């Protein structure tokens, strides 16, 4: 009995250990040496048989893994069809295993921690993974050859994401019909913006809508105000913060965030309502025509339905001095793994995917991405965009004279904050919407930043 039990226990342990271990390649079976045949005595010349042509052994395809997210437009069909189209064009022996996740950053971190980092981790935060040595930088020649702004999204001198397109932030989309009804125009300065808001409030409207239930969506007013006012004066401000030369409690940063608090105090933003409204609901409310102003990113150019019932306009959040500034994010979704087992095939697929006409068509059409590809015109993408989108593309994105700064917390470059901090910033915006004191919130952000930065510095 004891022997049986012991043997079964050992058997169970072996199975358990095998199940728990990471899949490993089985060692190639060692072939037995074939027996040497003894030479046959030849009496007559033997006809030499023609060698039988062996069928070529099919090479195992290279398997790449790709993790993306899904949106309404970039759904599973889009990803699978795009992958198939790219592979068909490449005519390479590559298979791509695709999967999607809602929280791509955290999922990618979990995969990295368990040595399963995907070959392509779509649109994850570049700085974290690049600094950990998990991403491959793009070749400068490749960047110079294909992209309008080859150096736009570099971290420590290297580009870890292809600068295929741009999105703008700090945009205020507005209902032209309501503006006309109230008798106001696009504001050129902050004072005009506040005056417009008062006029809208007096006319019975809540001037600004927000989608604060989703934390990333709640960030836009804060992102816009800091980008326009702080980065607009000093584009390198974030680098200085990382070096400890400035802080979030400094007057310029506090003043920018105070502008948000002023809007809440004046009733131009209903804080609690904003925090209870999610992205989809806020969008629909705007389409329905009862919302005067709505802060969103430039992807919103591609969202409104054709039968919206009113004309939509857009302007950048104005500065007190009236200087025109646009906050911008330049990048693309592809992040190429540095720990892939097939680096050459991976880069071949990645470079083909990020520039493929089907992919570019989808991201431009559905997300209103401003393409930044050399030697390509809008017509090449076969998209139908609104006049206001074309206007913004020509006069802002492609206009070197229009001052552009990195969008705060959305940058894909050295101006990205330290890992995890932007969640605290977004929480602070929510707190300001609830009426909390700006100075106290900024002091809290400084404390969290300093403590987190110290812990992260130790851990690297």
């Amino acid at each position: 009995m004891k022997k049986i039990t012991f043997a079964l226990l050992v058997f169970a342990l072996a199975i358990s250990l095998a199940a728990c271990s990471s899949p490993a390649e089985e060692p190639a079976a060692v072939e037995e040496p074939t027996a040497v045949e003894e030479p046959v005595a030849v009496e007559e010349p033997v006809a030499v048989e023609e060698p039988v042509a062996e069928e070529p052994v099919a090479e195992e395809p290279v398997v790449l893994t790709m993790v993306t997210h899904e949106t309404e437009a970039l759904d599973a069909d889009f990803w699978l069809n795009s992958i198939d189209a790219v592979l068909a064009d490449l005519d390479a022996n590559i298979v791509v295993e695709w999967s999607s996740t809602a929280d791509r950053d955290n999922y990618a971190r979990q995969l990295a921690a368990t040595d399963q980092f995907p070959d392509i981790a779509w649109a994850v935060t570049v700085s974290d993974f690049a600094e950990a040595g998990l991403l491959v930088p793009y070749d400068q020649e490749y960047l110079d050859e294909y992209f309008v702004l080859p150096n736009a999204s570099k971290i420590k001198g290297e580009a870890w994401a292809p600068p295929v397109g741009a999105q703008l932030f700090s945009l205020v989309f507005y209902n032209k019909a309501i503006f006309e009804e109230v008798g106001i125009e696009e504001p050129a300065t902050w004072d005009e913006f506040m005056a417009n808001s008062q006029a809208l409030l007096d006319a019975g409207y809540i001037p600004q809508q927000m989608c604060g239930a989703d934390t990333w969506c709640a960030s836009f007013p804060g992102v816009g105000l800091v980008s326009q006012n702080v980065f607009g004066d000093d584009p390198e401000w974030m680098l200085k913060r990382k070096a400890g030369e400035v802080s979030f409690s400094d007057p310029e940063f506090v003043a920018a965030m105070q502008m948000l608090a002023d809007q809440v105090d004046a009733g131009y933003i209903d804080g609690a309502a904003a925090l209870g409204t999610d992205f989809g609901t806020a969008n629909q409310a705007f389409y329905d025509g009862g919302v005067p102003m709505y802060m969103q990113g430039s992807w919103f150019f591609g969202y409104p339905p054709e039968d919206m019932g009113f004309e939509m306009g857009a302007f950048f959040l104005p500065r007190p001095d009236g200087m025109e500034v646009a906050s911008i994010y330049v990048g693309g979704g592809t992040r190429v793994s540095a720990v892939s087992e097939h680096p050459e095939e991976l880069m071949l697929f990645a470079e083909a995917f990020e520039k493929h006409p089907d992919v570019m068509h989808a991201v431009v059409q559905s997300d209103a991405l401003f393409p930044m590809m050399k030697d390509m015109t809008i017509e090449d993408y076969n998209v139908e965009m609104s006049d206001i989108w074309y206007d913004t593309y020509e006069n802002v994105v492609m206009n070197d004279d229009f001052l552009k700064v990195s969008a705060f917390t959305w940058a894909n470059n050295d101006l990205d904050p330290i890992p995890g901090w932007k969640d605290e910033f977004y929480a602070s915006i929510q707190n300001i919407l609830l009426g909390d004191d700006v100075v106290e919130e900024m002091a809290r952000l400084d404390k969290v930043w300093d403590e987190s930065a110290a812990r992260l510095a130790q851990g690297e």
Partner: protein
Amino acid sequence: MTNAQNKSIKEQFLTVIKSFWKQKITHFGLLELIVFIGILLYFFMTVLPLFMAFGFSFTNQNVLYKTSDFIGIANYIDLLDDKSFIRSLWMTTRLSLLVTLAANVGGLLIALMLNVNDRYHGALRTIFFIPQVLSAVIVSFIWRIILVDRGLLNNFLLEIGLIENPIHWLGDPDMAFRAIVIVVTWQMIGFCTVVYLASLQGIPQDLKEAAEIDGANRWQQFWNVVWPLLAPGVTINMVLLLIMTFKLYDQIAVLTSGGPGGRTETLSFYIIRVAFSGNQLGYGSTMAVVLFIATGIISGLVVSRLKRREIEY
């Protein structure tokens, strides 16, 4: 190794296995096997990660890096000054106590109503248990659709004229907290109901009949006969609910993402945010250890206190 030798080892192995199966395996041996497999799985899935987390808590482990340094109790000291940690711990404790109480009271009331053996009540039992079976994520998504400012609930209340303006169920910090308590209680109440039902049906009828004969009214029967005998069910429900709610994550992630302004951030949510979004696996592990200890202490205290009430009959 030759084919012949390979074959020989295979044959030997199969012979050993066959001989084991052929021999009489007693009931006792099979149980040992099953228990051992269970212990093994538990060890690798729970105990080992626990020890690893404990080890990480004394390091500055970054989730994206392979190596780390030993930093002693620095993480634990940092926790004392971490206002977000203290706030989330307090929020979790309040949530846990409220949900545990509400789900137990609600579950007991429903169990008392359903403690009738017929088909109709059988169907009702199933209906009440359904929320428990559903994934917490699905439940939370459904409730989010209901509770957002222009969601189903506000639309209904506005339609019938009960309110003039939408109630910020998820936008106001206090309302968001209450909404979470309601959603989690709604989901947990089915579990409590089933446990109390089982306990109720284990109470001998003759005890209640004897009490009735002695002139006890329904309330006296419940308080003097049924309630003391429900003690095991109370212990189970209280302890399990405390443990489950202390670890709450899914509902928070979907309903409020810890907002507004971090006011509904439970400890588990904060741990995940710090450990993964913030890359601070070491610091996150510290909080996880504290959560484990706190849950253990509270559960232990509750069990020891409630066990004294249990009656053997």
